[in-house]
């Protein structure tokens, strides 16, 4: 106890917090840096392959970040026992059985005596390769693209061309539909519990050679398998290093899921706002990755965690990007209004009714007064009681499986509300306010944000009951200040609005999709939008 009090009044402890600063990007920022990087990429991916197998292997290893990307399989074998070759493919994307049966097995038994190495590709295609779709190419770009798609590239020593075989075969376990983050227009598939499947789901969307899925173990005794998925050369390496550092520091014996990992590695544990975007949709995670952020996958957990997050990303749904700009803007505006209503409406009503009745019109005032005539609970208690009941119905609906859950929601809402009004426990006006609040709450796309808003609303109600609009203003200011201080993995939570970044994004409306080239700049990625 004494220690806690002493700690409270100590001023000497350092509290330096990780911050992702612009200056922490490697290299000197310059006007032409972006162009230089582009040229280097072009060099890596253009041109033709070398004759020497080792050079080609080295090239593929570098291109697919073989050091950190265990997905890349470079299988060495000898064609006809004499010609060294490599079959390059991506684990999970290519069907291993097809490679073994239709590439490796015929290769071992092929007789290539008298055929020069330079002619082996054509010979191999004609005499041994038992696959329907094959292609011979010299182009590095084509080869890289094919491997990323799940095809297998056979590179032969001394040959100037490679064979691309269609061995695309994804996992057999059916991928289910997203249950919690449903959309009308967007894709439907969801992550599963299998880490390999999840990586494949991501790879099917992000078909870039610089997409890295780095496997690693979590800390602690259980050593759960994790995958850190990101675009190498786009994501800020300092952010990546910080994530690794925080993951290294995990020392727990509990079973790890993305939700638990978030709690173990986040910076601000007290505030209810989430600091990691948890999504069950591969397309949402993939969009974040393409935007220069990092996705974290965990064995046995059908959710991906995306870092860093901001208020804007938490309020964004795939839907409003899929819809056309004007419609998307309307949807986003309605969603933001719903979110604001959900947080502030009960408190505002309470403040007006309790402290500033003059601000309500005579009609509303009389209606509220008449509806409350026989209600025995004081208004603030009535409001808070009803908000808690709403949460109760919601929780109950969530925990009960399937259609019973829906039934509980409806029955709870309708019957309980009606009964409470008849029993004079609550008034109709308050019931309507709480119902509106609930509706507004469901417009928030992120579940963690919904929960955060639900509890913040109760705190606001207490403040409003105590001191009306003064309480709301003070609480609102304190919350805004804390949100402005908060950072998710070094990125200010309210970026790109405070601080403003060069390429400001919008919260209430949606920008044109044409302007969305490159990654957003608030996470300080290396390759930003112009």
């Amino acid at each position, binding site marked *: 106890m004494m220690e806690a009090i002493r*700690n409270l009044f100590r001023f000497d402890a350092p509290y330096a917090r990780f911050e992702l600063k612009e200056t922490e990007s490697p290299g000197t920022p310059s006007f032409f840096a972006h162009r230089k990087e582009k040229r280097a990429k072009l060099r890596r991916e253009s041109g033709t392959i070398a004759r020497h197998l080792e050079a080609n292997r080295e090239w593929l290893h570098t291109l697919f970040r073989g050091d950190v990307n265990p997905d890349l399989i470079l299988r060495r074998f000898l064609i006809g026992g004499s010609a060294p070759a490599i079959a390059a493919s991506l684990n999970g994307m290519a069907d291993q059985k097809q490679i073994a049966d239709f590439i490796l097995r015929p290769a071992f038994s092929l007789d290539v005596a008298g055929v020069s190495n330079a002619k082996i590709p054509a010979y191999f295609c004609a005499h041994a390769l038992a696959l329907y779709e094959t292609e011979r190419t010299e182009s590095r770009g084509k080869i890289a693209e094919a491997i990323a798609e799940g095809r297998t590239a056979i590179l032969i020593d001394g040959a100037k061309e490679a064979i691309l075989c269609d061995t695309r075969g994804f996992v057999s376990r059916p991928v289910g539909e997203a249950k919690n983050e449903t959309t009308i227009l967007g894709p439907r598939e969801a992550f599963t519990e299998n880490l390999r499947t999840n990586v494949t789901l991501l790879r099917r969307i992000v078909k870039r050679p610089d997409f890295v899925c780095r496997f690693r173990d979590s800390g602690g005794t259980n050593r759960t398998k994790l995958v850190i998925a990101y675009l190498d050369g786009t994501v800020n390496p300092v952010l990546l290093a910080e994530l690794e550092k925080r993951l290294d520091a995990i020392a727990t014996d509990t079973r790890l899921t993305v939700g638990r990992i978030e709690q173990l590695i986040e910076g601000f544990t007290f505030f209810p706002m989430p600091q990691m975007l948890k999504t069950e949709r591969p397309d949402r995670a993939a969009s974040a990755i393409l935007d220069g952020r990092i996705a974290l996958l965990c064995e046995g957990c059908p959710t991906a965690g995306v870092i860093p997050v901001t208020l804007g990303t938490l309020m964004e749904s795939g839907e409003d990007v899929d819809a056309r700009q004007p419609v998307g803007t309307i949807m986003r505006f309605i969603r933001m209004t719903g979110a604001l209503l959900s947080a502030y409406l009960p408190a505002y009503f309470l403040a007006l009714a309790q402290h500033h*009745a003059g601000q309500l019109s005579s009609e509303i*005032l009389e209606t509220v007064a008449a509806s409350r005539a026989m209600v025995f609970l004081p208004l603030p208690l009535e409001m808070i009681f009803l908000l808690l009941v709403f949460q109760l119905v919601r929780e109950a609906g969530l925990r009960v499986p399937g259609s019973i859950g829906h039934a509980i929601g409806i029955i709870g809402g309708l019957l309980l509300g009606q009964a409470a009004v008849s029993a004079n426990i609550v008034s109709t006006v308050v019931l309507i306010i709480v119902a509106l609040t609930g509706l507004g709450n469901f417009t928030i796309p992120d579940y963690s944000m919904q929960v955060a808003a639900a509890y913040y609303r109760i705190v606001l109600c207490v403040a409003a009951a105590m001191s009306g609009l003064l309480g709301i203003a003070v609480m609102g200011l304190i919350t805004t200040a804390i949100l402005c201080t908060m950072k998710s993995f070094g990125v200010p939570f309210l970026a790109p609005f405070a601080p403003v970044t060069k390429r400001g994004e919008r919260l209430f409306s949606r920008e044109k999709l044409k302007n969305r080239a490159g990654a957003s700049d608030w996470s300080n990625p290396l390759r930003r939008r112009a």
Partner: protein
Amino acid sequence: MRRIRLTLTLLVLLLATGCVRSRNLDEYAYILNVGVERGTTMPYLVTFLVSVPNAGTEESAVKNVVIDAEARTLSEAVETLNAAYPGRLSFSRSSLLVIHEDLARTGEQTAFLDFSFGKSDLWQNLRVVVSKDPVRGVFEGWVTETDPSLRKIKTAAGDLASASGITADVGYDEYLEAVVDKRYDAMLAYAGETEYALETDLVGGDAYPYLGGSLLTKDLLKTSVAGCAVFNGDRMVGVLNGRHTMAVRMVTDAFERGELLLTLPDGTPMSVVLYRVRAPKITLTGENARVELYLEADPVSPEYTGMGRAERKAFLKERIEAELDEVFSALQRVNSDAMGFGRFAAMRFKSAEDWEAYDWKADYRTLSVSFSVTVMLSQEGTP
């Protein structure tokens, strides 16, 4: 962790300081109208029209309540009534203040109002009305079988002012400005409930006097608001009927639309609807003022072919100018600058001290005003 503790401490501090006092909104009794008149044992008799939930609706037979108490100040009256009325009286929805004519004629309301608006939740901008009858009667005249929502009554008075121009729509703020600033004199709406008591207004004349309480109706609300009470400083000095109120409002730029009944040279009555075209141009030089008014006229009846377009315009111009002259002379007689020429007198000064030292009212007595009305005919008379 340190930040959490800090935040928690601040929250505890906030919660521990105690709440700002509050009550449930259904524990209040909302005063809709406030009225003040001379008391018998105490200086003032304060009357309130208190809202009763569901009053005036079809399914309920309850009516709003009128209560009163004698007191020296508004707060004293409230305290007295709080002791006897279920529910705490609240001014948060009050929007009408009624001053009895007797009080207004002596200027005794000033002390009462100064006290009342000092520290109370009385809205600074409630509408002010002078009544010629006892306030209780005026309030009860509104609480009848045809009792609509009280707010609607209050807005109706304002709508009447803007739609017909026959009454004034003045808030307490404006009244106070007139009293404190002395640039112009106040002109408050005039209400009454005694039936058919014709009064002669400042100007006189035999026209139908649109005056509060004197309207020739039988079946509607007993209390009516029409015409205006004219002030000199904080003292009421006379009454103007609806038509003359309209004339004053034309000069003060408060006029929007109004109907004028005129008699043509051959004795035929003609009704003209007048609209404001643009703000009047007033120039004040020395002891002379010139007022240029721009009106659009729409003669709605009757079918009259005895005059051409130009003659009609000239006739209307002449009649309106004559009426304005009459009203101005009547106002000048009682030394009331309800037309607000003093507002333009202030523009000549470059220092507040000089303006404060200047006595506008002394010059007003000898002010001569020439009215020039430009009439635009919107259409020929339609049957």
